[in-house]
């Protein structure tokens, strides 16, 4: 191989896509040509650094927004199919939605919840990140307003679906399970966020403990915490977040510590948990 061919094959050699004969010729050339050797080494370092970039993970609100958008679309299609040109009542829409796709509703409930947290964050953010152009902006605003108007109806419908003890039994069943699929986890997260019964919420949280290694469980607890009003459940949630050492819980815990309307035991527990999850030990 001459320098030119080696230059052309540098990336192929790195990716090991050269034939073994070419690879041998390539390596032989490097042994005798310092320029090519240095070139190869610097490219190898660059590509190695590229491959070593940490993965980029989106936050939970992305899935939440997407599910809300999809749900909205499916709902509209269903209504259009049933009664073209006719407006149904709000109750009818919900019945449509839940009648058609019961499993979907819980994902949607989770979506509402995460989106609520997200909208709150946006509202109070000093400088909302500007969406690109006017079209983009309008599309997003449109989505958000649709989602917002649905959320109360969904929470209501979820709560009314089954009597207390039936919901409790459903959650208790999950407690026995060693493994839960993401649909089941979503249901637990939905129950934790939206169920009107403190018992059901506490049981859901207890069931989530066994799955604390799953991001969906941790994100679910974290998203439910700001809307929780029962000190009992708040304390249990704080315990959960401290036990799993979720660094992302920092802002939510900090705002509880500072919330003068929160129960004083809850505020104290949040402070302790905050110190436990903090990557740096507190200096007093």
């Amino acid at each position, binding site marked *: 191989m001459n320098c030119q061919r080696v230059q*052309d094959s*540098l*990336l192929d050699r790195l990716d090991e896509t050269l034939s073994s004969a070419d690879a041998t010729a390539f390596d032989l050339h490097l042994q005798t040509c310092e320029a090519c050797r240095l070139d190869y080494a*610097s*490219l190898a*370092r*660059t*590509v190695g*650094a*590229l*491959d*070593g*970039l*940490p*993965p*980029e*993970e*989106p*936050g939970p*609100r*992305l*899935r939440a*927004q*997407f*599910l809300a*958008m*999809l749900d909205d*679309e*499916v709902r509209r*299609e269903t209504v259009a199919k049933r009664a073209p040109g006719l407006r149904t009542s709000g109750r009818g829409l919900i019945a449509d939605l839940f009648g058609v*796709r019961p499993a*979907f509703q819980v994902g949607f409930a989770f979506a509402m919840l995460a989106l609520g947290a997200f909208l709150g964050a946006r509202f109070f953010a000093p400088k909302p*990140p*500007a*969406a*690109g*152009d*006017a*079209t*983009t902006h309008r*599309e*997003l605003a449109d*989505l958000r307003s649709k989602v917002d108007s649905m959320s109360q109806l969904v929470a209501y419908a979820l709560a009314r679906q089954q009597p207390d003890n039936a919901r409790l039994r459903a959650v208790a069943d999950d407690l026995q399970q060693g493994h839960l699929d993401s649909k089941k986890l979503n249901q637990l997260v939905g129950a934790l966020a939206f169920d009107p019964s403190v018992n059901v919420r506490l049981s859901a949280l207890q069931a989530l403990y066994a799955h604390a290694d799953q991001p969906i469980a941790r994100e679910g607890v974290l998203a439910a915490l700001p809307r929780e009003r029962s000190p009992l459940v708040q304390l249990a949630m704080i315990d959960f977040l401290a036990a799993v050492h979720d660094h992302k819980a920092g802002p939510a815990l900090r705002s509880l510590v500072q919330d003068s309307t929160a129960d004083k035991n809850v505020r104290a527990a949040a402070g302790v948990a905050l110190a436990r999850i903090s990557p740096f030990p507190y200096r007093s």
Partner: protein
Amino acid sequence: MEPSDHALMLAVRDGDTLRLGDLFERHHRALYAFFVRITGHASSSEDLVQVVFYRILKYRHTYRDEGSFTTWMYHLARKALADHFRKSARAPVSLDDADGAHEARDQAPHAAHQAERNDEIALLRAALAGMPGEQRELIVLYRLQHLSLEELARIHACSVGTLKVRIHRAIRVLRDHFFKLQASPRLSGSGGRD
């Protein structure tokens, strides 16, 4: 066997709208990573992913029988990105640069190794951010998103050979940026801020 992306997208087009959820689960992370590595901005990137899936839904009737889902998705992604940059006139920045994360780094000698690695990541991000948009995008799609040369050639409407040459050139440009930044005593001394 799992249905292909193409089969799922045809189902979405033909009325099984919920299948879009499967496509979202398969692709939203990669798409997010694509945007965040180019814009350097997490929440804008989430918005951009959302816009792409919104447009997939909106324009699903235009998806063709002989289409390729990833090609189409990245086509929409590049358009969304172009809109984003055109209107916001926001130059891409390195994620770590934005909040001065480098300032207090050398105060923990026991964490020297980690700091070194963080520095390398920061330098590489800065080097990427300093590249021309087209080249940066090529590197991200090829090396970080692992799109095949064939897919990339379709997206860029050029031959595989041409594309390979461009990728070679882009990686060399990145290498030069990267080594130049490493040689300079301070990251911020190398231009391209804000």
